[in-house]
């Protein structure tokens, strides 16, 4: 995506190629030539430090893990579809349910949320990249390495089989390397999360465009920021838990050795001290997405922005005070359980507030039933169910019946699948045009939504019943005669309906590859990312905007009449402000398409891509977003250069872990040296390479044609 031409007549002095690159007093360590410019191809992706490409890498990888985790789920459902089934052995089932949970939590929802955070947070605050672009790349490669490391276990003796929560002393004693893959894999993933958290926190705190005060930030940025703080503080706790378990397994220490007097509950306390903030890490970004999508398609601002921000922060704080509700059956005594029952009930208050605020956003709006909107409403309705069942768990005596049964499995699937995943799908459909420049098919999108909603409720709705009928969780089989046969069968059918819906989604991605290009703002949206081309140029903003309001882009387009209704400003393009989504090979549909309702049939509004303006930046489809006032001119800023050291260093982590796991110390030492060497070279390398070519922006208004562009404040 590197821009275009050097202007003639003034050709800049080409870099001196007689001197080996990087040689000289400031020479960084190099294995081979550092890539420069916005590299293409596989090498480009491997060395990218662009937050947008990294976001795409996170998203694609997370989606692939979603498919794998989904297959694991289907295996579980086939096994449980009938009593006394022998489709999976006990060992295979235990591996499948462990990996299903571990995958969905750590390799799907967290990185998918990271994909959105990475792609959007800089755009939404008017920045050109994150604070530490190479660290950002490192986070992604470490995530990939961690996922691959954990999955390599399938080929190296067996996958983790102690549950995604790994209770001791069971996991202390389990033979083989299965648990070790789990422990080391999670440690690697923890490094990715922690470095990502530091990066995004600094970015959000420090790189906001002028005028972008904290209370003008889009709500998605706020929710992700709270999630990053939770990651920052929660990851070290599970790190310690995993370290203690590692030491017990590798070096025969006594942390969970009951014979030496250890307390098995130490693991549970440490795990859940991490684990409960973790579930808020899993839900807050999706809540942020929903809070962005609902206002756009209701054509009203988010109801109660300040309260939404404060309730998110409140959830972040209160989430630290409820962890024992995962341990109500462990015999901690009435005082402790009462205290945590109360705290658990009260965290429902800020959560419930959000639901009412979303409802009020819809209320008296002008609603367009687009696919992202449907998924967002799906989130709210499904999350409500999950939240209510959560409140029933807070009633401790009830929980002693419900815990460890399918009733709990129902609860967390309603909040994590019906909640987080639906929210993330809303985000995918909403921001797909921004990322790729093309719309996804609305027809296939709606089919995906309805199939998924039906399949999801068909699978997990019955889980409530099964739990109330006494079916425990984590069981590889059950006998006939317990009354569970029927609903298990229905649930299994439902899981295949979900699978079909995902197939529809994949079909949608594929078929939409060749849809027409769209302009910057196909949805008539509200936030800064919709003011730049789709897809955005490498440098995001040609000039950093000066922000004057929350939902700045909306206010540039619309003012309000004396009844508070939005009115297009002078000079804005009249007519339907809805963006186009021409499906390839279809003629523009007429009004009986019935898809978006009145306001102008969508497809009919599509202007053909302008040959002179292929990126559609001038609003060839959708309308034009007037430019913001600009912050003071930036004379001289650099784009950070690509680098291979992040990916290189990441691999070293796996080498180290294999070495320690197999007690092959030479390999472990090699891994440590590998990592340190990578870090050292990275530290000595400047953020921008001296040979980095200059970029030119298409419609810069400065008088000088060689104004260079780069990401302010990025250097690490």
């Amino acid at each position: 995506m590197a821009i275009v031409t050097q202007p003639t007549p003034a050709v800049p002095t080409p870099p001196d190629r007689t001197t080996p690159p990087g040689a000289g007093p400031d020479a960084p360590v190099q294995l081979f030539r550092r890539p420069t410019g916005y590299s293409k191809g596989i090498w480009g992706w491997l060395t990218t430090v662009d937050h947008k490409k990294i976001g795409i890498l996170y998203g694609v990888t997370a989606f692939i893990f979603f498919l794998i985790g989904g297959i694991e789920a289907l295996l579980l459902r086939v096994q449980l579809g009938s009593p006394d089934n022998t489709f999976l052995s006990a060992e295979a089932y235990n591996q499948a349910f462990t990996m299903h949970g571990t995958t969905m939590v750590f390799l799907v929802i967290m990185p998918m949320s990271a994909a959105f955070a990475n792609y959007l947070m800089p755009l939404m605050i008017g920045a050109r990249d994150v604070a530490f672009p190479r660290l950002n790349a490192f986070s992604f490669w470490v995530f990939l390495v961690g996922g691959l490391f954990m999955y390599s276990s399938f080929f190296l003796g067996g996958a983790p089989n102690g549950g995604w929560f790994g209770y001791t002393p069971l996991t202390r004693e389990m033979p083989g390397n299965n648990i070790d893959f789990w422990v080391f894999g999670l440690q690697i993933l923890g490094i990715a999360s922690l470095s990502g958290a530091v990066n995004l926190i600094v970015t959000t705190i420090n790189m906001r465009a002028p005028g972008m005060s904290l209370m003008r930030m889009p709500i998605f940025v706020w929710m992700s920021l709270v999630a990053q703080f939770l990651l920052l503080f929660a990851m070290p706790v599970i790190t310690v838990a995993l370290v203690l378990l590692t030491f017990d397994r590798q070096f025969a220490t006594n942390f969970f050795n009951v014979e030496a007097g250890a307390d098995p509950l130490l693991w549970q306390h440490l795990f859940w001290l991490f684990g409960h903030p973790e579930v808020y890490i899993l839900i807050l970004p999706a809540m942020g997405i929903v809070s962005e999508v609902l206002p756009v398609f209701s054509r009203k601002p988010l109801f109660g922005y300040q309260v939404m921000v404060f309730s998110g922060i409140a959830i972040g704080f209160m989430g630290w005070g409820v962890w024992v509700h995962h341990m109500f059956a462990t015999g901690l005594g009435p005082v402790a359980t009462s205290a945590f029952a109360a705290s658990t009930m009260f965290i429902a208050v800020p959560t419930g507030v959000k639901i009412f605020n979303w409802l009020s956003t819809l209320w008296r709006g002008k609603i367009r039933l687009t696919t992202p909107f449907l998924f967002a409403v799906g989130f709210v309705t499904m999350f409500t169910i999950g939240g209510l069942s959560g409140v029933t768990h807070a009633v401790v005596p009830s929980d002693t019946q419900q815990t460890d049964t399918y009733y709990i499995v129902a609860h967390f699937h309603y909040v994590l699948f019906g909640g987080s995943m639906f929210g993330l799908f809303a985000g995918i459909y909403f921001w797909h045009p921004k990322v790729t420049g093309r719309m996804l098919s609305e027809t296939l999108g709606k089919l995906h939504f309805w199939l998924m909603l039906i399949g999801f409720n068909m699978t997990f709705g019955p889980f409530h019943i099964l739990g109330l009928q006494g079916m425990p969780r984590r069981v590889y089989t059950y006998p006939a005669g317990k009354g569970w046969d029927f609903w298990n069968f229905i649930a299994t059918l439902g899981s295949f309906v979900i699978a079909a819906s995902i197939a529809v989604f994949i079909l949608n991605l594929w078929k939409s590859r060749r849809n027409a290009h769209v302009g910057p703002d196909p949805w008539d949206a509200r936030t800064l990312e919709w003011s730049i081309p789709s897809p955005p140029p490498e440098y995001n903003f040609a000039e950093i905007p000066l922000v004057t309001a929350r939902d700045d882009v909306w206010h540039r387009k619309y003012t309000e009449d004396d009844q508070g209704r939005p009115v297009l400003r002078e000079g804005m393009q009249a007519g339907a402000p809805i963006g186009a989504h021409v499906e390839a090979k279809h003629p523009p549909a007429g009004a009986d398409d019935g898809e978006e309702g009145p306001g102008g049939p969508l497809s009919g509004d599509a202007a053909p891509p302008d040959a002179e303006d292929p990126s559609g930046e001038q609003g060839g489809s959708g309308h034009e977003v007037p430019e913001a006032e600009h912050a003071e001119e930036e004379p001289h800023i650099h784009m950070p250069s690509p680098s291979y050291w992040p990916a290189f260093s990441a691999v070293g982590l796996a080498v180290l872990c294999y070495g320690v796991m197999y007690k092959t110390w030479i390999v472990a030492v090699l891994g440590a040296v590998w990592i340190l060497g990578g870090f050292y070279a990275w530290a000595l390398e400047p953020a921008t390479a001296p040979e980095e070519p200059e970029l030119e922006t298409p419609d810069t208004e400065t008088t000088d044609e060689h104004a260079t562009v780069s990401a302010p404040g990025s250097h690490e």
Partner: protein
Amino acid sequence: MTVTTPEESHSAAEGSHTEVEAGHPPTSTGLSHEKVGMWAFLGSECLLFGALISTYILYKGQSEAGSVSPADVFDIPYTSVSSFVLLMSSLTMVLALAAIQQGDHRRLRVWLLTTALLGASFVAGQAYEFTVFTREGLNLRTNLFGSSFYVLTGFHGAHVTIGVLMLLSLWSLSMKGKLPTARAETVELVGLYWHFVDVIWIVIFTLVYLIP
């Protein structure tokens, strides 16, 4: 503001840090990214050590009766001396920062090296202490005390060691002329880390050694 020529932009890019700071738009807080990042990182480290310390405290006094206990092995005077050494290293760290901020690079290197040496002495002192404990029957596997003590202090010692390596790297960079006054913040940030590690030691020393 004027726009620089390509030649200027090239040479400017090479001294990347100085140029970059001068040419960057101000950060929203006025603090550099590295500084905010270091504070965030140290915040997470608080939780790391908090969890390790909590584990130690949970298992305090829970080891099997008759097995090796703190009273059997701790030499408070000895550990007090090494604690003092580490404390003094924080002072020398402050002096190193003051030196570079005043442009005195010779003194910077003296104090960097001193801090590194004091830190290394602390670690060496701990290593010696651990060999004595081992001879007296306390190792990683001995009992709850052994496991939690060594893992906690071992993690701390590893953090000190990494700090020493960073200090020596700074010393080496300065020797090669690559640590100009304009990059004083790098020393400040390493100093932040170093002081944090020292504070953690004070907490550990108090809870593990001093309080019975």
